């Protein structure tokens, strides 16, 4: 029942937060986005052992998809390059194009996961990690050169059809609900065969293959699920930011790397680990930004090194070591009362 209480607290707190701290609504929105980052990274990362540095690719595709759709539907190609104030869209136009763009982005992201995954998911260990690193940066570089999506100048997203407060609330609840759906989906997913298969692949992929598990299917599906949620998060972020370019859409050295660290900090391969890690990371990042400004990136880099070197087991791992009775695995000692007779021989 403690679990139920915890979920209620988080859900309730999340739902009511904007009413309490309207000034910080953007920061809270980003917090939910960071939680999505950490959870989606952990699917292929902590649970499956495929540590990707390039998941930001799917985020960026979502960002760009919506804005491109909006441009194609309502504006002239040149308006986006010359004018910073676009003709405002009506609410209907805005939300429909947002929705359609999100769907298109999601389809594209998943398709990319399947296509790229067919080659890249065949790589093991550090080759996969570095390959995805290259992938993420390549995406950013291509985005900064491709005229169709704004090249270096980026693209402007249409204004939200409503008041600033309305806008804040809309995006807050968008990210909040998305994060909740993501969490609950993964909670369900990890309770099925899928979860076991992912862990088996992580623990010994050769053995999993030797036992006949369709490893390719599981690996690709895992990456597709991550791509799906990341893409929608990206769609939202692009709109929230009102402007996208390679830095906004494919921020590899920030969000792209932080995804990995958040999950590790909290405890990779667990359900709550990425959530806890995301919260701590986000708060730390906000504090650094407020007090260190120009040096915040340096501080974040140092923070990353400290986590990796001194705290790789993460918070959940640390809790399990310190208080195994509360956080560890419970093993019962009662013997099985079954009909199998050879039990006593050994």
């Amino acid at each position, binding site marked *: 029942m403690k679990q139920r209480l915890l979920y209620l607290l988080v859900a309730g707190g999340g739902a009511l937060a904007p009413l309490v701290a309207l000034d910080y609504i953007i920061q809270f929105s980003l917090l939910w986005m960071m939680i999505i980052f950490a959870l989606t990274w952990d699917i292929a990362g902590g649970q499956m052992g495929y540590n990707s540095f390039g998941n930001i690719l799917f985020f960026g595709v979502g960002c760009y998809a919506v804005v491109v759709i909006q441009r194609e539907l309502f504006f002239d190609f040149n308006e986006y390059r010359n004018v910073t104030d676009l003709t405002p869209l009506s609410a209907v136009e805005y939300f429909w194009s947002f929705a359609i763009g999100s769907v298109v982005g999601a389809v594209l992201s998943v398709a990319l996961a399947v296509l790229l995954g067919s080659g890249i998911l065949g790589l093991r260990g550090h080759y996969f990690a570095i390959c995805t690193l290259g992938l993420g940066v390549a995406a950013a570089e291509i985005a900064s050169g491709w005229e169709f999506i704004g090249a270096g100048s980026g693209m402007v997203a249409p204004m939200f059809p409503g008041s600033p407060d309305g806008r804040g609330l809309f995006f807050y609840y968008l990210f909040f609900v998305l994060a909740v759906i993501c969490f609950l989906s993964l909670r369900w997913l990890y309770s099925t065969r899928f979860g076991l298969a992912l*862990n088996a692949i992580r623990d010994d992929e050769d053995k999993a293959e030797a036992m*006949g598990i369709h490893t390719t299917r599981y690996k690709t599906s895992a990456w597709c699920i991550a791509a799906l949620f990341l893409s929608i998060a990206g769609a939202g972020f692009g709109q929230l930011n009102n402007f996208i370019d390679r830095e906004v859409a494919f921020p590899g050295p920030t969000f792209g790397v932080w995804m990995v660290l958040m999950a590790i900090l909290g405890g990779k391969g667990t359900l709550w680990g990425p959530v806890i890690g995301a919260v701590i990371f986000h708060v730390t990042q906000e504090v650094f930004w407020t007090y260190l400004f120009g040096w915040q990136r340096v501080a974040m880099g140092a923070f990353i090194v400290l986590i990796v070197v001194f705290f790789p087991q993460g918070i959940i791992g640390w809790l399990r070591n310190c208080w195994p009775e509360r956080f560890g695995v419970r093993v019962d000692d*009662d013997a099985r009362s079954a009909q199998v007779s050879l039990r006593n021989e050994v």
Partner: protein
Amino acid sequence: MTNILEVSGASKSFGGVVANHNITLAVPRGRIVGLIGPNGSGKTTLFGSIVGYHAIDEGSVKFEKREISSLRVPEIARLGLLRTFQQTRIYGKMNCVQNMEISTSHVQESLWDMFRPLSAATTNKAEGLLDFVGLYQKRLLPAGELSFGQQKLLEFAMALMNEPKLLLLDEPTAGINPTLINGIIDRLKRANTEMGITLFVIEHNMRVIMDLADHIYCLAHGQILAAGAPAELRTDQRVIDAYLGGN
């Protein structure tokens, strides 16, 4: 009596080293066949070739009359041909029950089966088999925390969970406390008679393999040296020489 496995003229070299040369053997369905030979004679390599871990250079491997030498490991495993590893391999961070639950047969799996919740029937079967090998009390421990011998038992149980048709066992009693070996021999026999699994076993322990197998092949220097019933091979001078390094 049909042969569930037929190897004909299989050869495998690594670089310049010939590991297997012109191996021809057959494993009859429902029986227990042994594979013995001194260290370095190519036994594990032969297993690797059969299960698709590496391709053979020449020859053929037929499982249930079907040529499998060009198939990959997961495909062969889904046909019902499994093996256990010499350096026991299990899923270290998952507990024993989970190790078992993920080891069910994956043949029938469609895309939707991936997302099925774990059924009580599967868990029951898993626990039953864990009990069969004597690991029931350790079932919630992470597999990586078991002792070497216990991991071997777990790996064996996982193979049984999969209900294979043919199971290749690579030194199932190596590193096991001698007092426990009888229990293992007994379980292997029961797996064969009660579950109908054909066994092909590499063993160094002569007592074990003589007790267990109906038919034995002896490898030396990558080739088949002798084959026959345990009683014949025990007194075969060539086999004795191979082990004692005779000229």
